[in-house]
């Protein structure tokens, strides 16, 4: 079945009226030449001027906590597991302090910070070099600050990978829909509600645009709420009343490589008071 844009919009409109929301539409359109980026917002869609995330690693206690967040993202988004670093695709992953914030470490820093793993993902930079260099506009920035890709337009030149200062992008060096050496599918259990990718294109974290469109928080944030309060917090950076803003104004946060001016939208809480006990924001 092929479907053009107008048909899609009509379908989306009808289903929105019927209150079915975007996911149903998306299910229908599975396997068509349709973009996650063209996802039509449903009636309950979450909106923001600039989406942002606050990451507080002190709320993550065990390796299991990290794994649950990563698994949530990678299984929701059909991220294949190549089990080798060369072809690896990852949207969210842990790194030790010195690798997450190179140049910020010092030999005398406290063991806890030094040994802590930090979850890294695309920063959805406000001034994104990946968008600047893309020769086809396959990578673009949405009005709400999310940096997205059109998988059907990407020519696989990998200029954006050279340009991203955060190593946030992965390239499909091999067919992600294929099987590994042992005959196991690279995507363990395919999530039919999200498109798989083709060989030869670049991908990364999307801040879960497909979930925002139906009123859900990003998958990693949702899972983190099950075992921690405030491990991953998602919200509108432009709204002074949002939770992310409250945390950022109350605690000491840093962003990765802020000196190079890309203006990341992901903030990392480094020590400081627990914002829950800072009186003025209670």
């Amino acid at each position: 079945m092929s479907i053009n844009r107008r048909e899609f919009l009509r379908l989306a409109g009808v289903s929105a009226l019927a209150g079915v929301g975007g996911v149903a539409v998306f299910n229908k359109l599975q396997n068509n030449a349709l973009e996650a980026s063209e996802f039509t917002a449903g009636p309950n869609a979450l909106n923001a001027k600039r989406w942002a995330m606050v990451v507080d690693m002190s709320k993550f206690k065990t390796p299991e906590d990290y794994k649950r967040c990563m698994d949530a993202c990678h299984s929701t988004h059909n991220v294949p597991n190549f089990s080798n670093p060369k072809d690896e695709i990852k949207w969210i992953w842990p790194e030790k302090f010195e690798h997450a914030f190179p140049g910020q470490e010092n030999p005398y820093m406290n063991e806890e910070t030094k040994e802590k793993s930090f979850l890294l993902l695309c920063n959805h930079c406000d001034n994104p070099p990946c968008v600047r260099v893309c020769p086809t506009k396959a990578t673009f920035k949405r009005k709400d600050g999310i940096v997205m890709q059109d998988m059907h337009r990407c020519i696989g030149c990998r200029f954006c990978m050279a340009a991203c200062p955060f190593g946030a992008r992965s390239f499909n060096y091999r067919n992600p829909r294929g099987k590994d050496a042992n005959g196991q599918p690279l995507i363990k259990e395919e999530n039919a509600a999200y498109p798989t990718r083709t060989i030869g294109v670049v991908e990364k974290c999307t801040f879960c645009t497909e979930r925002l469109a139906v009123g859900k928080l990003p998958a990693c944030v949702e899972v983190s709420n099950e075992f921690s309060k405030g491990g991953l917090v998602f919200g509108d950076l432009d709204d002074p009343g949002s939770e992310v803003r409250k945390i950022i104004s109350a605690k000491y946060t840093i962003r990765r490589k802020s000196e190079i001016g890309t203006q990341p939208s992901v903030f990392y809480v480094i020590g400081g008071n627990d914002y829950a006990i800072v009186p003025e924001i209670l």
Partner: protein
Amino acid sequence: MLDKALKGSRGYWGWLFFLMGIMGAGFLAYLYQFKNGLGVTGLSRDISWGLYIGQFTFLVGVAASAVMLVIPYYLHDYKKFGKIVILGEFLAISAVIMCMLFIMADMGQPMRVMNIFLHPTLNSVLFWDTVVLNGYLFLNIIIGWITLESDSKGIKPPQWIKPFIYLSVPWAVSIHTVTAFIYAGLPGRHFWLSAIMAARFLASAFAGGPALLIILALLVRKLTKFDPGKEPIQALGKIVTYAMFANVFFLGLEFFTAFYSGIPAHQHSFHYLYAGLDGYNKLVPLMWTSSILAVVSLFLLIFPSFRKKEGVLAFACVSLFISLWIDKGFGLVIGGFVPNMFERVTEYWPTIPETIITLAVWATGFFVLTVLYKIAVTVREETAGIEIEH
């Protein structure tokens, strides 16, 4: 004029078939890559550009170097270059064709290449690079063809070609400047983020390109009845010397900034390339080979008494060409990716399919070059003794 390429000696045909053999092997290797993806190369998440893009970068320089003949001849009326200017222009054509093939070989979705023109993106350096490379190819085809055709008829080229010739001068500079901007504008890649990158690119291009031209001119003299002349070759030798000196000087400036400032991020890539980093040192022998060859060639070139001996000049040019090929066609690209964005080291080495494809692109370039040179040389042989004027 194309018919001139169809009549040749056994050696000529043998050479062409030899090249076609390599091209055929490369085509098979490419089909393999096309089917299985770029995973069959040595590229990785950390080193996402390698041999292909390195060759592309290097060859843009070779293409741009034609201007080193065009400027003296057309702008300074240096008549001695009259007969060999065409060799530079035809070299440029084959170099640009190789550049385009390398870009295609490197693309994850080559069938979508037209997206660059369907969705023109003015803020992307890669878009501009595509535009200027195509323009440069067009300029050199038309200039080379028209001037050679006039020569073969023994007439002056038409006046309308002049503006194209003048335009080709800044255009040549632009192709290499824009190519340098692909690298020099990326935040977070300290090795590339250098204001002198474009100048370095041009200097190495104006050394490497003419060095190759000298080798080619000497070969042409040896293999055909057309003698490009002693003086033009010596003049080219001087150009190579100055440009190579500038190139080595610029590299020295990079070292100074990185090491006197003491900023670790600026030093890492240099450490990796010349001494190894965190115990990884795959590229060290190559980079030292490049440095030694650079010093040797420069030493031989600087003293006119050495340079004047054509055998020594040829040796110097070959060393210089290999030196620059390693430095720019390999070290420059890989060095920029090491260490990665997390200050970890991942190493890269081309795989066999990748190497075969690379050789095949070079073979294609030499195929085009041989055919074009055959035409040019035949015209020169036929018009031997006649003074040409453009």
